């Protein structure tokens, strides 16, 4: 058993432990409270390189990070197979106990071996699945026996989307006359350890910017008559080979989605944007699709809209000057279907500014988000950090560009402005603690049980578990783009305006939220929110097609596991144990012998010396 400080948690050390000796039974890593200054990323150097659009047939020189390495700090640890458990320990009293146990019993003194009893640790982390997805899915006995036992489950969650204008969502397939501008962001992240997935820069920064932009556009899109509709979309599972975006594209191709690919005009994606320094953001585009004349024209228009929108704001936009591929982004999956004009906004030009991409250190410190000391949680919630200010500027720019892209008038853009306080509150909720007074008011009472007092976990997890970011984004998007509906709770839950309404459920979705408690009572006064927010299943098409060896779609699954726990104790030497056993057997045999002898001679031993009276004559 190895317990190590996180400074030693590097690829070379872990590979040595994995390959060097078969005597390593488990590893425990003590997580420090401060991020390592040199950065750490257990993801690959070229994320999602085989599931994007670049391959031998599409931009072969751009594939596999030949031109630029997106994640240079990546050491690929998350994608290595370890056959022993690796736990992360917080640096608290329990960990101190473990270290003390080692110091007391296992430390060699003066070069000699430590003496028994020795300190031992046992880590329970039983995983049912082995080998790969195809094997474990085959071993699942769903539906064949009375008690279906699954060994592994596919990763999945929900994509959250909302058109700026109501759309008949019950009718699937092509919508005539509709032209959509997709505004997308990703909802998920991960780290090496499953319960920790802060994803502040890799996921939260992008989705918060998009939410703020959607809020800024609420009034403008309702008042103005726009030729195109803005379609806000949040994809889940993008970390694991684009689960969400591949599923949505698949649904669109199979006419299972309220719109289809012909309805999509262009795509604007917000990637990692939390760290833009000297106020410059980068607009990434795909050089291969731009070889097509019409696509090139649309891309140029979108870029110029963004550049115009940035004027007068504390943001400047720039395209990377070289021919390089798109960074890992959901747009790549759209491009796999057909060439769309699209732009991905990132805070870097040639490699991630994020030093902690998909690691447990991608937290508030990674975003350089700090609060003055001695603030209560309520004060922290309402404090506008510098990060919030920058993201709000960016959101304003995105909103204005989207408005113009959707056909809005340039003169009306000055009214579109993102709210800084809103952005700070969202940052606080996703990165610090979701269980705060503001979020409590926006969510339904069933979802309120999921709120926690620490950073949200952005890991997608299996399909039957809805992750906290999904819940938060769903309610936030409804609150920020929708409106309060004056309906009863019963009508609200049944998706209608009143008893006779049969039409509204096709266009809107209604959600009853907790609301705030009025000043002189403790009971919350709930209300109904009417919005166009919907969630669709984000499960890889490979599982619909039952093609578990698919090269086109994500085939990630998570193994079923038993309770995860660990314990420490002392072990005695083997000699002492054998001595005890030997002593026991000796005692047993001796007593058996003695008792046998005594009982067979009992009449002699216990006679009183008199002649037996039975000897009569």
């Amino acid at each position, binding site marked *: 058993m190895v317990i190590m400080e996180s400074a030693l948690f590097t690829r070379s050390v872990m590979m040595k432990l994995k390959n060097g000796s078969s005597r390593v039974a488990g590893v425990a890593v003590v997580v420090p409270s401060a991020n390592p200054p040199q950065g750490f990323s257990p993801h690959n150097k070229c994320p999602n390189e085989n599931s994007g659009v670049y391959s031998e047939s599409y931009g072969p020189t751009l594939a596999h990070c030949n031109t630029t390495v997106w994640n240079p700090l990546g050491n690929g640890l998350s994608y290595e197979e370890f056959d022993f458990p690796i736990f992360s320990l917080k640096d608290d009293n329990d960990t101190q106990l473990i270290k003390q146990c080692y110091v007391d019993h296992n430390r060699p003194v003066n070069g000699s071996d430590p003496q028994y009893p020795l300190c031992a640790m046992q880590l329970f982390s039983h995983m049912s699945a082995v080998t790969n997805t195809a094997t474990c899915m085959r071993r699942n006995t769903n539906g064949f026996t009375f008690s279906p036992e699954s060994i592994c489950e596919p990763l999945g969650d929900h994509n959250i989307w909302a058109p700026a204008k109501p759309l008949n969502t019950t009718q699937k397939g092509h919508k005539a006359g509709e032209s959509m501008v997709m505004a997308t962001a990703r909802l998920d992240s991960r780290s090496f350890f499953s319960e920790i997935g802060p994803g502040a820069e890799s996921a939260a920064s992008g989705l918060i910017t998009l939410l703020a932009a959607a809020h800024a556009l609420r009034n403008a899109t309702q008042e103005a008559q726009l030729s195109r509709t803005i379609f806000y979309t949040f994809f889940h599972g993008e970390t694991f080979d684009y689960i969400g975006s591949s599923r949505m594209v698949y649904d669109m191709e199979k006419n299972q989605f309220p719109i289809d690919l012909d309805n999509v005009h262009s795509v604007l994606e917000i990637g990692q944007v939390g760290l833009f320094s000297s106020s410059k953001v980068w607009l990434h585009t795909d050089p291969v699709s731009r070889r097509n004349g019409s696509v090139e024209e649309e891309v140029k228009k979108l870029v110029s809209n963004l550049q115009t929108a940035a004027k007068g704001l504390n943001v400047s936009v720039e395209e990377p000057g070289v021919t390089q591929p798109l960074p890992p982004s959901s747009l790549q999956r759209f491009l796999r279907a057909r060439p769309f004009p699209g732009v991905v906004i990132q805070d870097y030009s040639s490699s991630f500014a994020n030093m902690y991409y998909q690691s447990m250190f991608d937290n508030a410190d990674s975003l350089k988000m700090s609060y003055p000391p001695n603030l209560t949680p309520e004060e922290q919630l309402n404090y506008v950090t510098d990060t919030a200010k920058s993201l709000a500027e960016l959101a304003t720019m995105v909103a204005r560009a989207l408005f113009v892209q959707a056909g809005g008038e340039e003169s009306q853009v000055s009214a579109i402005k993102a709210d800084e306080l809103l952005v700070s509150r969202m940052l606080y909720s996703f990165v610090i603690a979701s269980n705060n007074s503001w979020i409590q008011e926006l969510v339904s009472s069933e979802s309120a049980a999921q709120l926690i007092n620490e950073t949200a976990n952005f890991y997608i997890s299996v399909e039957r578990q809805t992750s906290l970011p999904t819940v938060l984004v769903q309610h936030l998007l409804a609150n920020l783009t929708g409106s309060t509906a004056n309906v009863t709770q019963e009508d609200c839950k049944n998706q209608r305006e009143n008893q006779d309404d049969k039409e509204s459920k096709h266009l809107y979705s209604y959600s009853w939220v907790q609301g705030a408690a009025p000043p002189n009572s403790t009971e919350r006064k709930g209300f109904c929110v009417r919005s166009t927010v919907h969630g669709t299943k984000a499960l890889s098409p490979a599982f619909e097609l039952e093609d578990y060896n698919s090269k086109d779609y994500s085939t990630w699954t998570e193994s079923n596991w038993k309770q995860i726990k660990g314990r420490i*104790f*002392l072990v005695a030497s083997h000699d002492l144990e054998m001595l005890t056993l030997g002593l026991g057997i000796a005692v047993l045999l001796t007593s058996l012998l003695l008792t046998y002898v005594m009982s067979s001679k009992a009449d002699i031993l216990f006679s009183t010396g008199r002649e037996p009276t039975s000897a009569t004559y």
Partner: protein
Amino acid sequence: MTAAVFFGCTFIAFGPAISLFLFTIAREPLRVIFLIAGAFFWLVSLLLASLVWFISVQISNKESASQQKGLLIFGVVLSVLLQETFPAFHEVFKCFFCFFVLVSGLGFGFMSGAFSVVNILADSVGPGTVGIHGDSQHYFLSSAFMTMAIILLHMFWGVIFFDGCEKRRWFVVAAVVVSHLVVSCLTFQNPQYVSSLVPTYIIMLSMGIWAFYTAGGSLRNLKLCLTCKDKDFLLANHRPR
């Protein structure tokens, strides 16, 4: 600490008792019944003692540690006294053979031993051993030896006590009660296992010898037995007429 220790300690604690059961009790159903009766009466005495202790703990001041320790000692003493009243019920059974007292004494011992050692044995199966908080490593072993001594002691006490009751020799009865109290209080010496185990074994040996004499044995019989002259003794008594 693994199955080896579990079996080792089980054999140490229950070895003599099991062998006694196998060779002297198992064949006769009546003796088995008396064994169970003895075990039952021990449980009843423990129940009454725990009831009194529980009530006094509830009444007492929970914060004071010395008061709690005092109450524990009181509880142990009371339990011992109650245990000693139950053999008096053997008057009811008015048996004519000392053996039944031995059997019910063994029943007492079995149940007492089981209560004191079974949870320790259950813990000993796991991979670890005692000591992470600084306690002695030899906890399992000394508990097993202590249990063996207690089981045998209960048996010897039963024999002596009954004989004392029968012959109205009250100092014998008092000696049994006092030695039981002494042994129980010796356990408060733990974790200094030497100072509790050695006196206990000395008391056990002396009680064993006393019980041997009470049951009708003598040094002469022992010598005869050991030198295998017993057959001649029997034959010698069958004098031809």
